């Protein structure tokens, strides 16, 4: 789950990291009011779940409340990287001496957290020369000890016993604590503004592990999925909307991907990715079919290699949807595995002949979608 900038900053602030003085608004009148309250020059930042907001015009500066109002109005009327803007963050404009970069994420190859620091912040980290990037994997059993954070600061070229050096060590250790305690996959501060001896998080990018949300009850929730994708998620199905016209249902992420690949290979286009999972029973399967139909495909392919999934459950669900709701488009079924014979008998009654091999079923459905 990605979080908005202002949510991340609220977390930073709660943990004692410095963030710019600011408030959220949802209209331009309030933008002027908050700008006046902050006093002096302000920055107006669109709150959307996307990077590169500045380049897209989603961040503007203003010297006074009138300018702030005009800038806010302008941002509310635009889309930033395809996202409508509903909330703005109005903040004091910082006096910037330097811009650093600081992030902690998971190094998948090492299977450990990794901290990434740079004294060349403010831009995309991919554009920073390797010489200026410090990466350090963290042993989870050791954690972010003081000596580890101190050595990172030393490698950044900052004097360790200076007020700035001490503040950076504290910032790094605090950020690691946040990373662990909120079950983050990514915590990023870019830029980390150096203003005199102060270290200020001028931006925040945080992603939370969805699997850990059950124990992160205090965190706000952000919904990025489409309505249909959310419905599927709540049913325990994994569903992604695609742009084609062949509805797809399979059991398991890998075989679903394999099904999409095979459809593409034979020249078809998939309308969705739907992994009905292992062990989805009759009811879940029926719901999955309804979801696929809601996307108005030209044809549907169901590819089941039943392990935990029982072929007769799938067949019963398909038969019941066909009887009760009706399926207005051709359905091609590949059905093998647990209780295969019982499943095929049920399908035969409603006039569906199941295939043995996925390639044959997929060839057929691509033909039917033309």
């Amino acid at each position: 789950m990605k979080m908005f900038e202002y949510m991340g900053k609220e977390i930073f602030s709660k943990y004692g990291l410095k963030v710019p003085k600011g408030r959220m608004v949802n209209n331009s009148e309030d933008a002027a009011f908050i700008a006046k309250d902050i006093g002096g020059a302000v920055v107006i930042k669109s709150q959307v779940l996307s990077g590169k907001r500045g380049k897209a015009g989603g961040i503007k500066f203003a010297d006074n409340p009138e300018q702030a109002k005009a800038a806010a109005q302008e941002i509310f009327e635009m889309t930033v990287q395809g996202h409508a803007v509903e909330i703005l963050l109005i903040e004091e404009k910082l006096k910037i001496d330097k811009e650093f970069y600081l992030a902690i994420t998971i190094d998948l190859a090492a299977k450990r957290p990794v901290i990434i620091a740079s004294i060349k912040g403010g831009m995309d980290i991919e554009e920073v020369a390797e010489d200026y990037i410090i990466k350090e994997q963290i042993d989870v059993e050791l954690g972010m000890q003081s000596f580890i954070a101190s050595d990172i600061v030393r490698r950044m070229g900052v004097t360790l016993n200076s007020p700035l050096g001490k503040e950076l060590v504290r910032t790094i250790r605090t950020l690691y604590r946040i990373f662990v305690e909120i079950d983050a996959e990514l915590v990023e501060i870019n830029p980390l503004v150096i203003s005199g001896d102060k270290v200020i998080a001028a931006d925040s990018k945080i992603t939370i592990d969805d699997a850990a949300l059950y124990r992160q009850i205090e965190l706000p929730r952000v919904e990025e999925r489409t309505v249909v994708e959310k419905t599927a998620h709540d049913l325990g199905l994994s569903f992604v909307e695609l742009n084609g016209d062949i509805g797809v249902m399979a059991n398991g992420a890998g075989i679903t991907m394999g099904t999409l690949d095979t459809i593409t290979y034979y020249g078809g286009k998939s309308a969705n990715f739907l992994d009905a999972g292992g062990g989805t029973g009759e009811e879940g399967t029926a719901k999955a079919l309804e979801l696929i139909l809601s996307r108005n495909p030209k044809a549907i392919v169901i590819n089941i290699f039943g392990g935990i999934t029982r072929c007769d459950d799938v067949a019963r669900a398909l038969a019941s949807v066909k009887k009760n709701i009706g399926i207005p488009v051709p359905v091609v079924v590949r059905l093998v595995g647990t209780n295969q014979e019982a499943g095929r008998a049920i399908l035969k009654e409603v006039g569906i002949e199941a295939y043995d091999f996925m390639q044959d079923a997929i060839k057929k459905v691509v033909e039917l979608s033309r």
Partner: protein
Amino acid sequence: MAIIIDETTNVLVQGISGKQGFFHTKQMLTYGSKVIAGTSPGKGGTTIEGIPVYDSVRAAIEKHRIDASVVFVPATMAKDAALEALAAGIKVVVVVTEHIPVHDEMAIVAYAKRVNSIVIGPNTFGIVSSGKCKIGIPPNQFFIPGPVGVVARSGTLTYEIVGNLTAQNIGQSTVVGMGGDRVVGLTFVDVLKKFEQDPETKVVVLIGEIGGFAEEEASQYIKEMTKPVVAYIAGKSAPQGKQMGHAGAIIERGKGTYEGKVKALTEAGAKIVELPFEVPGIIKELLLKL
């Protein structure tokens, strides 16, 4: 021979009284696995399917020699269960549970490394040394003994490919499911090294998918292997930025793409099949040449 588990492996089931634990204990016994004990806190002293149940792994270890354990407990308690098995000195721990938080997975993997044990999963179908021992959840009927080593990230895709091999009477030495999550205990390289050493394995099938760096990493080792490797990578047609079911199956900022993985594997000398059902044909050819 086979890798990691064989006909002598004594298996403990953690969470044996739960729905999945109970069902798959029966399936494993039917396959011939030596499931000799189970755990379920509060149910110590009872039996399930004739298997003695203990309150803790320590209690089971006091009575039995345990070579491997399989974790069927819910995600909220899976970290504790896996660490319990590792701390008790069990050398192979199979974590079937899905949706375990990634920070918990990092903790499990780090500890396993320190105590020098193997963690298979999380979010895995398990491991089968065909005809000898099955630990996990795959359907029994598709696994027959033979010369093909299989290592995969995805379960159902493995069933598809192994099912097709078996349909053509091509058996498998060991089939390893590393797990569909981003952080799992084994790497392709860990498993490939074992297949390279295993006399029963003549050829290896690697089933990968988009996202992450596991296949690229595997390529480095495949260069050194004497045994042929056939690879299928799922997700060629997946769009960027969309997570395809598995937590790891996502192309972000152009990383972990199908093209990148195929290039690395091809350069390493692996044979790439474009579609899953092309595997048996090419394996047959390779076996004839040996």
